[in-house]
């Protein structure tokens, strides 16, 4: 049976793509007939398996790490479809293995949702892991932030060779300390004190900004984001200064790039940092994460927002004057059914933009904006109609869409009618 697994998986993959089915279906089937399939395929890799997890930034960070390592000559396997459940990994594997079940790769870089990562590390131990942050997200699935932190702790425990941790996240620092006491190797990425104000944790959102710790009581960072100006970004890597332009936009995405640099340096200590930085300069945003489209004379920016911290950072990074903005809020299972999170985001940054709302919870969003005295120009539940009027509007050539996950997928699909869109799922 197990010998047949690759063939069965590949057949289902072809069939489901013909029928426009979901990216995880072949993985789901293979998981059912052969639960050890994923571990079996990945255990063969010489550089082992690397897990990237945390609430925000998994997809962007994974994409950058893959690009950094590939540029250094490694053959990298990844679940690049943003399908970050185990069956998503299985689906990606089915596409890449040969019929003997052999994967032609040196290393696997996997983006895993926190809950699935816990199951995954029971199947096989990652050599390295990168833990990005713990934010309030999907509480309808996980219940509490502390529960999510416990899940990340499980990943760290299972990791054999090295753990990379965001030193600005107090819950992760605790996990790092606990693992360090057990003799594990911990490395950190971080941000200069003066930039920390942009990364207000959920514990601090109701505190005054000036109370936030800007001191230097944190462990030394292997990769540090030291400054961002309009055109340039400065990093300190291994205490050496590097400066570069980036195509990736948004403070949070640039911080994800910092995390990616730290991880790449640990996996390949022999790689020259300047080469990694040169590659980073070429990296483009991951799909729907500040992704930019050109439609006629207008630019359209697609920004995924999933939770309060992510939405706050997105507004901090992308909101600007005279932009035409569409906010698309769905409440499917993948988005989270609870709308409470919208009330932990401050929308004042949109006060000089022309804002419309769409999605299954367009009216919830409209009420939220009303409470921040942001005028809503149009409420249209139906996303295709709302997108059409955004694109045909001539009031601004700078257009932005802030959207939840399923809204983002729908909008990317619809955008194919207007411009070229890279197929990712």
């Amino acid at each position, binding site marked *: 049976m197990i010998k047949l697994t690759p063939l069965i998986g590949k057949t289902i993959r072809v069939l489901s793509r013909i029928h426009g089915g979901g990216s995880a279906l072949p993985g789901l089937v293979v998981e059912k007939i052969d639960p050890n399939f994923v571990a079996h395929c990945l255990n063969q890799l010489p550089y082992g398996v690397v897990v990237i997890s945390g609430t925000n930034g998994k997809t962007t960070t994974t994409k950058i790490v893959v690009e950094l390592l590939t540029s250094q000559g490694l053959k990298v396997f990844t679940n690049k479809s943003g399908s970050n459940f185990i069956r998503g990994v299985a689906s990606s594997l089915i596409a890449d293995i040969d019929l003997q079940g052999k994967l032609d790769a040196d290393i696997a870089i996997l983006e895993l949702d926190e809950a699935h990562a816990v199951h995954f590390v029971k199947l096989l131990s990652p050599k390295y892991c990168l833990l990005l942050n713990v934010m309030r997200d999907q*509480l*309808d699935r996980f219940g509490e932030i502390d529960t999510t932190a416990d899940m990340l702790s499980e990943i760290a425990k299972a990791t054999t060779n090295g753990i990379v941790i965001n030193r600005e996240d107090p819950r992760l620092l605790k996990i790092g300390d606990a693992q360090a006491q057990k003799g594990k190797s911990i490395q950190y990425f971080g941000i200069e004190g003066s930039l920390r104000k942009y990364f207000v944790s959920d514990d601090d959102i109701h505190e005054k900004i000036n109370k936030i710790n800007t001191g230097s009581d944190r462990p030394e960072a292997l990769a540090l984001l030291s400054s961002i100006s309009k055109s340039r970004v400065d990093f300190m890597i291994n205490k050496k200064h590097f400066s570069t332009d980036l195509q990736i936009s948004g403070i949070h995405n640039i911080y994800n790039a910092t995390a990616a640099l730290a991880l790449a340096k640990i996996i390949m200590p022999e790689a020259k940092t300047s080469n990694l930085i040169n590659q980073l300069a070429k990296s483009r945003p991951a799909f729907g994460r500040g992704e930019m489209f050109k439609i006629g004379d207008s630019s359209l920016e697609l920004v995924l927002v999933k939770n309060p911290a992510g939405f706050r950072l997105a507004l901090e990074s992308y909101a600007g004057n005279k932009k035409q903005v569409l906010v698309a809020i769905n409440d499917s299972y993948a988005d989270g*059914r609870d709308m*409470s999170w919208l009330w932990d985001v401050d929308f004042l940054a949109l006060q000089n933009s022309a804002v419309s709302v769409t999605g299954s919870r367009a009216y*919830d969003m409209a009420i939220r904006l009303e409470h921040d005295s942001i005028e809503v120009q149009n*409420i249209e*539940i139906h996303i295709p109609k709302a997108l059409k009027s955004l694109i045909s509007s001539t009031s601004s050539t700078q257009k932005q869409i802030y959207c939840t996950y399923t809204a983002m997928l729908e909008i990317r699909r619809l955008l194919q009618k207007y411009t070229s869109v890279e197929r990712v799922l």
Partner: protein
Amino acid sequence: MKKNELHILHLYPRDMNIYGDNGNVLAIEHRARKHGLQPIVRKYNQGDRFPRQVDIVIGGGGQDSGQLKVLDDLHRIASKLHKLADSGTPILFVCGLYQLAGHEFVTQGQKNMKGIDLLDIKTKAGDQRLTGNVVATSREFGQLVGYENHSGQTTLGDYAAPLATVIKGVGNNIHDKHEGARQQNIIGTYLHGSFLPKNPKVTDWLIATAIQRKNPDFKLAAIDDALVEQARLITMKRPR
């Protein structure tokens, strides 16, 4: 004491702020202004001085760890809260503080938490997390909509009346279809969403009850709730 000032006491915004309960404070402020009042919000965290002027008290949900962090201080200010409640001050407690406003919260494994006896309710940790959209019918406020996310199961004593009866969702516990509690001018509920923005009748009741104690002639203004009505209708139709 200015007649049109509305002093809102927001309890423990630092540690009991999960699930968007800050929206309840925003909703009271927003609506109070529409009624011609001047809302003044006082945030109260552990160790702060308890304010002298309080017209409305709002307390939100939190993680188990947040509840433990505020518990001692909550007992420190319990007599002040009792005094406010006894004098008719309207109070809204959501989720975590709703549980602690009762007699006790019996947790699993951890130490039990003794409540401040403002509400005649008891809560016991259940082994399942109750999450999803809720629609409930209240005699006072009509249909209530919200989102529940809790594992504690609450039962009412003789002095507390249910706030509403659940039509969709679970509410206080898996047995009796009750959602929330009413006692004096206190409302306790498990509903987030945030609760008040989509249940303006409750917001107006809190405001009117508060302000009429200072100004018996106060009348609520007519507010156009078309948007809120749409949001409520959609919420009622969404899957659990």
